[in-house]
């Protein structure tokens, strides 16, 4: 992936008159008066003109500049970069499923509706909750939807309330989603174990608090062992427990959010359920809820009666729509295919191996990299650069050096409570051989940090481009190509 030709922008290799596809000729009589009253553009200034061969080479070369799960280990913490089984792609591309117009009459789309309803049922079983909406487009969208459901409930009961409590270890989308839902965010400090302090929670949890948003296991990979007491405290004041399901790969088949008294949960089908990330989407962020919140789910809701499926739009208490049509349908198909392939024992095994792999890495590297919290962790573990800092080497430098080893770095940008974080989530995808390769690379990089820190500070050395100047990119933004 390194020996590629410098690939220009498509606009730079364009030459007049070329096109990558032959379109059919017009088979109806041409009329010119149809342009009456229309503002017509004189041209598509700057639009590329290239042949099919050029298109193919352009994108093939671009693709070769990407690191991906199909290529190797991708331990991006909280992102659950597991292998994407190829049969899932195959079924999602079946024209009988993907060719249906979203506004087709229900009776002509029974197969699709059945598939969606089936996925809803499976997600209810996995989460231990009562109802699911598949409409949200991604995790953050699911969060927003979940918070809107909570707000709608409180509103219907006389007071939408004012605050949402969020632990300081949370992902940035949590406070952002709560805010867009009209709530003021109050941060809860983590205790020395890296989990929510019950005393802090009890103090902050008033009748003006709509909900607690909790990620479990949290972004440190630590399970909130007091989750049942946490839920009791929140429920006692009439609040809801919202769980961010980003880390469900640590729990599926082993325990269920519903059994922990969680009220609302969003799932990331593109994490736990193996649908590909596509370089940043599409994802899918279904929301699962307890019965009391069901009336507020987005419309339409899929209903089943006598083997026939029906879209119900008549739901007076619904928050309304959060997206056009029914959600990321093709992504749902991939997740369903994944679940069918796993079966109940396979799902549990998925979780067990993910947790085993993470703990294997943690125990193999704990003497080499600093662990701020020594609480037991599940599917991911968070080291920091504290030991390497003494040699002037940061988590960024370590990460960039990993690229030279042909490995993708861990997550660095959060949790904010660990300075210089290296958040590692191997998932169940990796074999012991691959884990050992990573562990050896991390150990070698630690040695390099001590012996030749400059090597790390200037890494990566053998990638398509070297370290990029992000300051220049932000100070003088160039956000599009322009004709010189």
């Amino acid at each position: 992936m390194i020996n590629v030709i410098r690939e220009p922008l498509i606009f730079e290799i364009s030459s007049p008159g070329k096109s990558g596809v032959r379109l059919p000729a017009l088979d109806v009589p041409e009329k010119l008066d149809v342009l009456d009253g229309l503002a017509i553009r004189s041209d598509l200034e700057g639009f590329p003109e290239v042949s099919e061969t050029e298109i193919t080479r352009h994108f093939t070369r671009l693709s070769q500049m990407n690191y991906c799960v199909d290529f190797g280990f991708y331990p991006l913490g909280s992102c659950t970069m597991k292998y994407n089984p190829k049969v899932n792609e195959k079924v999602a591309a079946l024209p009988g499923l993907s060719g249906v117009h979203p506004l087709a009459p229900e009776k002509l789309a029974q197969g699709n509706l059945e598939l969606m309803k089936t996925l809803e049922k499976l997600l209810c079983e996995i989460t231990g909750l009562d109802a699911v909406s598949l409409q949200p487009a991604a995790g953050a969208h699911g969060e927003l939807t979940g918070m809107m459901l909570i707000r709608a409930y409180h509103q219907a009961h006389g007071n939408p309330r004012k605050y949402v409590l969020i632990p300081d270890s949370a992902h940035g989308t949590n406070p952002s989603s709560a805010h867009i839902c009209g709530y003021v965010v109050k941060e809860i400090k983590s205790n020395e174990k890296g989990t929510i302090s019950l005393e802090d929670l009890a103090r902050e949890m008033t009748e003006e608090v709509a909900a607690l948003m909790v990620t479990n296991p949290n972004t440190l990979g630590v399970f909130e062992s007091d989750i049942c007491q946490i839920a009791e405290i929140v429920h006692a004041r009439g609040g809801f427990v919202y769980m961010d399901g980003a880390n469900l790969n640590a729990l599926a088949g082993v325990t269920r959010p519903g059994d922990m008294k969680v009220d609302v949960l969003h799932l990331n089908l593109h994490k736990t359920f193996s649908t590909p990330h596509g370089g940043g989407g599409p994802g899918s962020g279904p929301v699962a809820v307890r019965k009391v919140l069901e009336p507020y789910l987005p419309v339409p809701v899929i209903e089943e009666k006598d083997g026939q499926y029906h879209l119900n739009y008549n739901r007076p208490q619904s928050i309304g729509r959060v997206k056009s049509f029914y959600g990321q349908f093709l992504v749902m198909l991939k997740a369903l295919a994944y679940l069918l392939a796993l079966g109940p024992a396979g799902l549990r095994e998925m979780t067990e191996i993910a947790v085993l792999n993470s703990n294997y890495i943690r125990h193999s590297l704990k003497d080499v990299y600093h662990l701020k919290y020594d609480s037991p962790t599940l599917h991911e573990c968070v080291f920091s650069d504290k030991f390497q800092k003494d040699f002037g080497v940061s988590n960024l430098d370590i990460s960039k050096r990993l690229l030279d080893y042909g490995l993708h770095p861990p997550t660095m940008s959060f949790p904010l409570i660990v300075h210089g974080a290296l958040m590692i989530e191997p998932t169940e995808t990796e074999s012991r051989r691959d884990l050992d390769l990573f562990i050896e690379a991390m150990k070698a990089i630690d040695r390099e940090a001590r012996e030749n820190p400059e090597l790390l500070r200037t890494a990566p050395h053998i990638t398509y481009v070297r370290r990029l100047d992000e300051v220049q990119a932000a100070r003088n933004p160039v956000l599009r190509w322009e004709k010189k």
Partner: protein
Amino acid sequence: MLARIGVDSVEDLFCCIPETIRLQNLLNLPGPLSEPEIVEYFEDRGKKNLYHRYLSFLGGGAYDHFIPAVVDYLSSRGEFVSPYTPYQPEVSQGTLQVIFEFQTLICQLTGLDIANASLYDGATGAAEAVLMANRVKNKKRLLVASNVHPEYRQVIYTYTRNLGLEVVEIPYDRQGRVDQKGLESAFNSHTSVLLCQSPNYFGVVEDLETLGRLAHSHDALLAVAVSEPLSLGLLEAPGKLGADIVTGEAQSFGLPLSYGGPYLGFMACKKEFVRQLPGRIAGQTVDAEGRRGFVLTLSTREQHIRREKATSNICTNQAHCALRATIYLETLGRQGLKKLAWVNLQKAAYALEKLTAIPGVRRKFGGPVFNEFVLEFPSDWSRIKQKLEEREILGGLALGQDYQGLEKCALVTVTEKHSREKIDRYAEVLKEVLK
């Protein structure tokens, strides 16, 4: 592995989960299925979708366009399908350059300065557009044309409901366009934005120049939603006519109908609003050796840094859909896109002429159209629709449930996939049905 960790069994790794909430049994789930069984399972469900037997003239924000083979072929490469968001630019130049090219294409189509990497879909794009205008102008009144896609408007209501914003709907006139009198009386000093759609939900192309002038004279922005962006191959770029924000749905560009998703929201705006633009943005820079490269930039707008003060909570977006759209647009190119838009316009015009030649069928709105139009029938559309369905034709989308007074009307969509023969067949059957 267990020995290295220092536990006896995998079960021990879960000791941090209280016994009381640990599952004692396996979940009640189907499977495991083998690979051929999975394929068969989905193929069987596909057979239950009878849609494919029908000749369909459905559109309304989801369009059946031809997709060149090269789009499927290149976009299914694992290097595009299986990476995460490009957080490590040194090993993500492929994805980043694609986003940069996508942003450029969207700017060229919309006639605006900058564009983001994508949003979820046209509906959430419309909601993000009015929220953005609210941030730019810091005024709470948002005008939304009633001929904007009903689902887009519903999402706008859902998004704005909890934020103390006032959404006011503007009526449409006999042309099917935004009613200018109604619009003028709706503006006041608290108005941030007028959001309209062009071509609108009735398929009618709006007079954006006038709408822009009106909005600007009231110190408000003009935001334009485009649900059929193929129209931009022919129509003047909204940015050149006064639009400050252009958002929309780019499903038409190489994405299958997919029963509604994943689709592709896009958003472009004037340069001065860049810090209020939601979503990811790729920018050009240089590497340590001075070579051109691309990074995600201006991230301080986003949730992972600004948390509750972010411009939007969007994180994962529709990168792979944007990739497909980029391949699609670059394959068609300058000539191809213009030609395809022309073909759509002409076929729709042919269909409109053919269908309105049938006694009792008339064109509802006088305004100019692109590839969709509204027809009015002698009786309720629901009855005609049913009769057409008996003849395996889906003749259009009902409007009655969303617009009072349009119970006799339907929105008919024609694309390059409708041969003359198919259009003629629709006309013949409709004629019989109406006898």
